[in-house]
């Protein structure tokens, strides 16, 4: 008997420690259970309406926000695009097609400053209300209202949409934004300057309509739960559990519902790359994006695929760094650095897939010549990997600058991938350029951004993902004094070409296109940056998954409206 008592005491004390320590945890468990049971009801509801065509995929993080004007990341952008629809939308691969606005009926004034969009009359919100031009006016004003603190609103609207700049400076009221609704189905936008790529510009989620009554009724809760999101796009969100995942079902009230093939999409949050792959292998998800080390093992699988991205990565050589600016401003010095490292080696180490070594800045297969249809990117070997040439430039640089040995710092992040980046660059550059030592600096991402913004670095690798479909999204970065020009590059001719493309050539598509091509040529001739690669994403997908074999060049990665499962 006594023995039993002691065992009991042992158990009780252990339980007491754990339970008492978690007295707060205890009540949380209750709320958790309640939530789970209500989720349970929702899932049964949806599984009744869901047929077999439910696409099961994973996401690398929870959705940071479903509020269209607050997005600043891939995941949010992707799922906002899936539940909402704006003026236009992207078909797979990036073609701009009609959304709420009928694209073929859009009128552009001769000076390119006024766009008149004609909206379809059969588009509705999920609550049955029609989507009207007033909803667009409100949505755009909401993005432009500085009090709402939109992340992208200012970046996208200022200097483009009439009065946006003054609104962000709080000189004008948001109602003064250059948008209007002469009637329910006509939406007029006035621009400050012609924006030749406006079609793709309005894809951004800051340009979505918003249901004023609903948004105001939800207040601070807007977009925090499926109930506080009012969809007007191909899918509706039915459940969203923090850090676990979310589910969407086809929105039957969507005007083009007959062309939405899937009955639903189920997304699980899986942060660990190996866990994602394991779930794919055991059949829990239908499609998975592979990380570097996983590519090699799966490359030969019939389910393997690589999708081109419209993003390029390049090494930055800061011409305004505190100590090495004199070196970096030397043309031969930069040429030597740009040609001295093996781009393929970089790809092998960092991505392990068939990303393309690039000697250019504006991605291939991104934009085409408006008349001839030729690709913007005609390739160039000016900055190709060439050890011999690099050594020649290096010798010249040594003569001109009068040095034998030099140490440069290489800034990178503190993740495993970021460290492998700095290691491969250090190895390559030191191997091929005699007298060069690279000192690697690995810091957290936020600090890395700070240091770059302050131009407090010497070498670093950056990538650029465009925000709209036009070469200027890339070329604009390196104009003298540009906000994102953190390499201190300056060339008058380059600046003049970019300015011309934005002003007098804005309405002459062919000339403008060629001016931007020339600008890129100058950038490369000057070795302002050292291009490395154009990235590809590697995936495994079951053969019954259709419509997801192309990435969009900007904004949302995939157009789930067109996805399908064909078993």
């Amino acid at each position: 008997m006594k023995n039993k008592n002691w065992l009991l005491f042992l158990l009780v004390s252990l339980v007491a420690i754990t339970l008492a320590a978690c007295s707060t945890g205890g009540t949380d468990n209750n709320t958790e259970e309640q939530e789970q049971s209500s989720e349970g009801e929702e899932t049964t509801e949806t599984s009744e309406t869901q047929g077999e065509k439910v696409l099961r995929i994973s996401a690398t993080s929870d959705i940071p926000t479903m509020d269209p004007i607050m997005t600043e990341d891939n995941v949010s952008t992707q799922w906002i695009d899936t539940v909402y629809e704006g003026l236009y939308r992207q078909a797979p691969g990036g073609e701009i097609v009609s959304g709420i606005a009928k694209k073929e009926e859009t009128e552009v004034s001769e000076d390119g400053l006024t766009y008149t969009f004609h909206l379809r009359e059969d588009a509705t919100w999920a609550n049955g209300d029609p989507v009207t031009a007033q909803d667009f006016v409100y949505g755009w004003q909401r993005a432009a209202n500085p009090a709402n603190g939109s992340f992208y609103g200012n970046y996208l609207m200022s200097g483009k949409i009439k009065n946006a700049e003054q609104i962000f400076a709080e000189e004008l009221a948001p109602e003064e934004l250059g948008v209007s609704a002469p009637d329910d189905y006509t939406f007029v936008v006035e621009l400050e300057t012609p924006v030749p790529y406006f079609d793709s510009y309005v894809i951004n989620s800051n340009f979505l309509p918003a249901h004023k009554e609903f948004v105001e009724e939800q207040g601070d809760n807007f977009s925090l739960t499926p109930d506080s999101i009012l969809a007007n796009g191909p899918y509706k969100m039915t459940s969203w559990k923090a850090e676990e995942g979310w589910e969407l079902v086809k929105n039957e009230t969507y005007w083009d519902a007959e062309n939405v093939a899937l009955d639903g999409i189920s997304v699980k949050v899986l942060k660990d790359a190996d866990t994602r792959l394991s779930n794919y292998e055991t059949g829990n998800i239908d499609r998975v994006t592979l990380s570097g080390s996983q590519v090699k093992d799966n490359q030969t699988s019939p389910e393997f695929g690589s999708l081109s991205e419209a993003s390029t990565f390049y090494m930055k050589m800061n011409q305004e760094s505190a100590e090495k600016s004199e070196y970096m401003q030397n043309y031969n010095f930069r040429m030597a650095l740009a040609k001295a490292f093996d781009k393929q080696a970089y790809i092998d180490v960092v991505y392990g897939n068939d990303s393309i070594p690039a000697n250019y800045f504006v991605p291939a297969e991104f934009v085409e010549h408006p008349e001839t249809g030729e690709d913007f990117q005609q390739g160039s070997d000016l900055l190709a990997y060439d050890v011999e040439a690099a050594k020649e430039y290096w010798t010249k640089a040594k003569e001109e600058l009068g040095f034998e040995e030099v140490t440069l710092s290489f800034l990178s992040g503190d993740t495993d991938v970021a460290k492998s980046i700095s290691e491969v660059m250090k190895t390559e550059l030191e191997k091929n350029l005699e007298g060069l030592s690279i000192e690697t600096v690995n810091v957290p991402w936020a600090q890395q951004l700070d240091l770059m913004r302050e131009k407090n670095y010497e070498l670093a690798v950056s990538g650029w993902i465009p925000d709209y479909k036009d070469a200027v999204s890339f070329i604009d970065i390196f104009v003298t004094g540009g906000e994102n020009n953190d390499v201190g590059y300056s060339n008058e001719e380059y600046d003049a070409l970019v300015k011309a493309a934005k002003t007098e050539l804005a309405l002459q598509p062919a000339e403008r296109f060629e001016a931007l091509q020339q600008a890129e040529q100058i950038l490369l001739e000057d070795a302002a940056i050292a291009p490395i690669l154009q990235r590809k994403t590697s995936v495994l997908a079951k053969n019954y998954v259709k419509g997801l074999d192309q990435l969009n060049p900007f904004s949302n990665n995939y157009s789930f409206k067109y996805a399908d499962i064909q078993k």
Partner: protein
Amino acid sequence: MAKYLIQRIIYMIITLLIIISATFFLMKIMPGSPFNNLGGKITPEQQAFLEEKYGLDEPVPVQYFNYITGVFQGDFGVSFQYENRPVSQMILDRIGPSAELGAQALIIGAILGIILGMIAAIKHNTWLDYSSNIIAVIGISIPSFVFAGLLQYYLAVKWQIFPVSFWESPIHTVLPTIALMIFPMAICARFMRTEMLEVLGSDYIELARAKGVSNNSIMFKHALRNALIPVITVLGPMTVSLMTGTLVIEQIFAVPGIGEQFVTSINTNDYPVIMGTTILFAVLFVVVILIVDLLYGLIDPRIRITGGKE
């Protein structure tokens, strides 16, 4: 007893205030901004505007005062990273799975560990002792994510006995619980063995034996009770760290717990979330330490709980 408790609670509040203040000021000297993790796609004016909106343009002491005032009113602010989500809600959503997983791992791990340790001590220098020792050394030296990976690969992917991941039903908790319980089990076994050996060699056990007390009674009534004290000491803080989540285990098994949030919030300078999770950890810690101290008295009445000087 009451006096002692009141005194301890006052100390706890002071400790918490110090932790909150230190974290707040240290956090503010971290590099980076919560609003520019995009790499240059926010204009400086916009950044200034956001800082003003969230009160980050004020001097740090003013921000500190505002924050503390909020905390006393139960307002922990809203996340920057997860737009507009209240921090208290985020914590409530995520502490559940972490606490459940941690409690399971701790209870099972501690019980198994204590049994292992006792067996090792009683069967000192036999194969039982050696194998229990080997288990303990492996458990302490191999990190839990290695076990997690192995368990997941064999039991879930290859043999498909358990689900790979997700947090849906009790069966989903098996693998993460096993991966997580190995460390507390090993620690308990080590402490238990050492203490039991010491206790078993002490005079009063000899006396009990001489008096003819039965072996079971010696083990459970006399030895175990005294040997438990150091185990309780290490279990206290371990409870907190287990129940507040483990980044790697949570990621591998896709558990929607809080461990990961703590790390992400620091990386993204999500100030309100950093503060919220720190306060949670700190509160749990001081409470557990108090409970451990109270338990000492319960297990060994010689440890007196009294207030002030004696």
